[in-house]
């Protein structure tokens, strides 16, 4: 009957309880939505980075990480990639030549990362081919085609079919260069990437640098599920112990850190909301206990133990908090679900977001266990909020309480 009384007491003053529940509900809705929004944003950034920039797993010659010099290539790259292709859950493998060099147009010059690729192989690993906004992906230009980012094109003041010159060192460490014609211009959500990455055919780079046929600095691997990268990389390490094999978290530790920090911030945000609500709940329950002083005095007088009175007020507070909390979680979940498939358009702040590498169309994302954690946090808030009012009720002197008119 304690449960029944506590639940009925919650609804004794419908307006007051509804106000408190609405406050809790709206607070949690906002908290859950913001969590889903920022988690979605970070997940998209990671997905985008993996599919456009770093891939799931990379293989290098161990010396390449220390000095990204031309000579630190893997001569057995075709053999390695053939063996990796045969593994399970591999979406694609691409051999790349990586050179940091200078690219210049008639107007200006800038430092970039040149990636020499086999366009067909690379299509299986990155989505640059689908990000072309002008021209075509290595088509329409027969000799020395190049694909550059939109931001770089703007910087160099060039367009499709414009000529640019790539200056680099050859295998003999002599300065050499080649004229390339722009076949396509791509645009990813990351303007920093677009400004500093140029794609050419491996065969053109091999010819320009004098590297042996089949040589590559990097083997980029895309797996079917990003989480599988952490088991597949172990297999590859065993297969090629003399090579440096890195998964995406090792390649880009800031990505993994970003996920952890975002999860932490999301909970901090909800804790701040609940902390603010805590005082509202305490205030309400203090009013409740004060209003029912005579009734509580009567309960103590007829022989209800102080522990049961304490429990009754605690239960009432938890039920009040949880009712509002469940409404908030439900509403927050519905909104988060809606925006999982209907993107939130942030294009009015596109410049700022794309500089940071974030997409301007954000799809919310939230893990189901987060709802459980939030529900537990609401119950904890209810319990904490109940302690002081319940303690006040506990301290009532029945004789004194019954004297109140």
């Amino acid at each position, binding site marked *: *009957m304690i449960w*029944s*009384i506590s639940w*009925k*007491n919650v*609804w*004794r003053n419908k307006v007051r309880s509804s106000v408190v529940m609405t406050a809790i509900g709206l607070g949690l809705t906002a908290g859950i939505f913001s969590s889903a929004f920022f988690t979605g944003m970070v997940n998209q950034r990671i997905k985008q980075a993996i599919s456009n920039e770093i891939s799931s797993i990379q293989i290098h010659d161990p010396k390449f990480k220390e000095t990204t010099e031309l000579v630190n290539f893997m001569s057995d790259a075709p053999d390695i990639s053939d063996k990796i292709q045969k593994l399970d859950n591999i979406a694609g493998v691409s051999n790349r030549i990586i050179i940091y060099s200078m690219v210049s147009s008639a107007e200006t010059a800038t430092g970039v990362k040149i990636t020499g690729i086999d366009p067909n192989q690379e299509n299986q690993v990155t989505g640059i081919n689908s990000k072309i906004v002008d021209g075509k992906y290595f088509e329409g230009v027969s000799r020395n085609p190049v694909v550059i980012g939109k931001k770089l094109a703007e910087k160099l003041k060039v367009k499709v079919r414009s000529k640019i010159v790539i200056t680099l060192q050859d295998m003999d460490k002599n300065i050499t260069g080649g004229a390339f014609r722009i076949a396509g211009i791509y645009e990813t959500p990351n303007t920093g990437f677009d400004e500093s990455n140029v794609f050419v055919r491996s065969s053109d780079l091999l010819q320009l640098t004098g590297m042996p046929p089949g040589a590559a600095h990097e083997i980029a691997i895309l797996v079917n599920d990003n989480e599988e990268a952490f088991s597949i990389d172990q297999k590859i390490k065993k297969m090629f112990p003399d090579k440096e094999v890195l998964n995406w978290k090792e390649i880009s530790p800031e990505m993994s850190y970003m996920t952890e920090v975002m999860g932490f911030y999301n909970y901090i945000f909800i804790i701040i909301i609940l902390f603010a609500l805590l005082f509202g709940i305490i205030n309400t329950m203090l009013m409740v206990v004060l209003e029912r002083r*005579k*009734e509580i005095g*009567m*309960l*103590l*007088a*007829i*022989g*209800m*133990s*102080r522990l*049961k009175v304490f429990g009754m007020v605690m239960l009432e507070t938890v039920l009040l908090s949880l009712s509002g909390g469940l409404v908030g979680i439900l509403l927050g979940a519905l909104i988060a679900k809606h925006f999982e498939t209907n993107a939130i358009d942030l294009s009015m702040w596109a410049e700022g977001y794309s500089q940071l590498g974030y997409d301007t169309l954000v799809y919310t994302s939230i893990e189901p266990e987060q709802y459980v954690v939030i529900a537990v946090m609401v119950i904890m808030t209810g319990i904490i909020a109940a302690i002081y009012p319940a303690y006040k009720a506990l301290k009532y002197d*029945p*004789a004194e309480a*019954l*004297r109140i*008119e």
Partner: protein
Amino acid sequence: MSVINIKNLTKIYDGSGLEVVAVNNIDLEFEKGEFAAIVGPSGSGKTTLLNMLGGLDSPTSGEVIIDSQNIWELSSRKLTNFRLNNIGFVLQSYNLIPVLTAGENTEFIMQLQGRSKSERKNRTKELLDAVGIGDRVRSRPNKLSGGQQQRVAVARALASKPKFILADEPTANLDSKSTETLLNIMETLNKTENITFIFSTHDARVMKKARRVITLVDGKVDSDVTK
């Protein structure tokens, strides 16, 4: 054999250095099955005496012995338990739990005692029938008249099968007809169930019904008349 034995009971309220002697060295005995009224002018110490008798307000000195046990020697937890199982309270302003029905209000105290559901249901029906509101078992207090609410309070007080019932001004908020009905119900229960009733009252109708009238003046027993 006396159910309640009060010895040298004194209560002094000490507020801001001003001592008020509410109950002054009272000795009283109550037998099983008594129907007694404690009367006296306002401030004479009736409610304070009843509170000390009911284990609600601790005496400054003296003893309240019920069944050979000085209840003020019990720990707080044991005293609460003692009240639950031995004393029924009927208060001036009914003090029913507004969110519970008449039946639930009556049943609640039995649940605190840990009685079985069937026993609770049977006794609730029996008591509400006895106080004449068996048909209002599902009504909440706000749907009952003052007299009906006080009858539920009497049923609740009796539900725990107490040794005695303390009723503090039970008729103060009732009209003549409701007072008459309530007093008749309590008198009948006193006779049929042999439960001791002790009232504090100003009400002449209660005094008339009571078989023993104790008059307090300035915290002392001025007269103690058994009819």
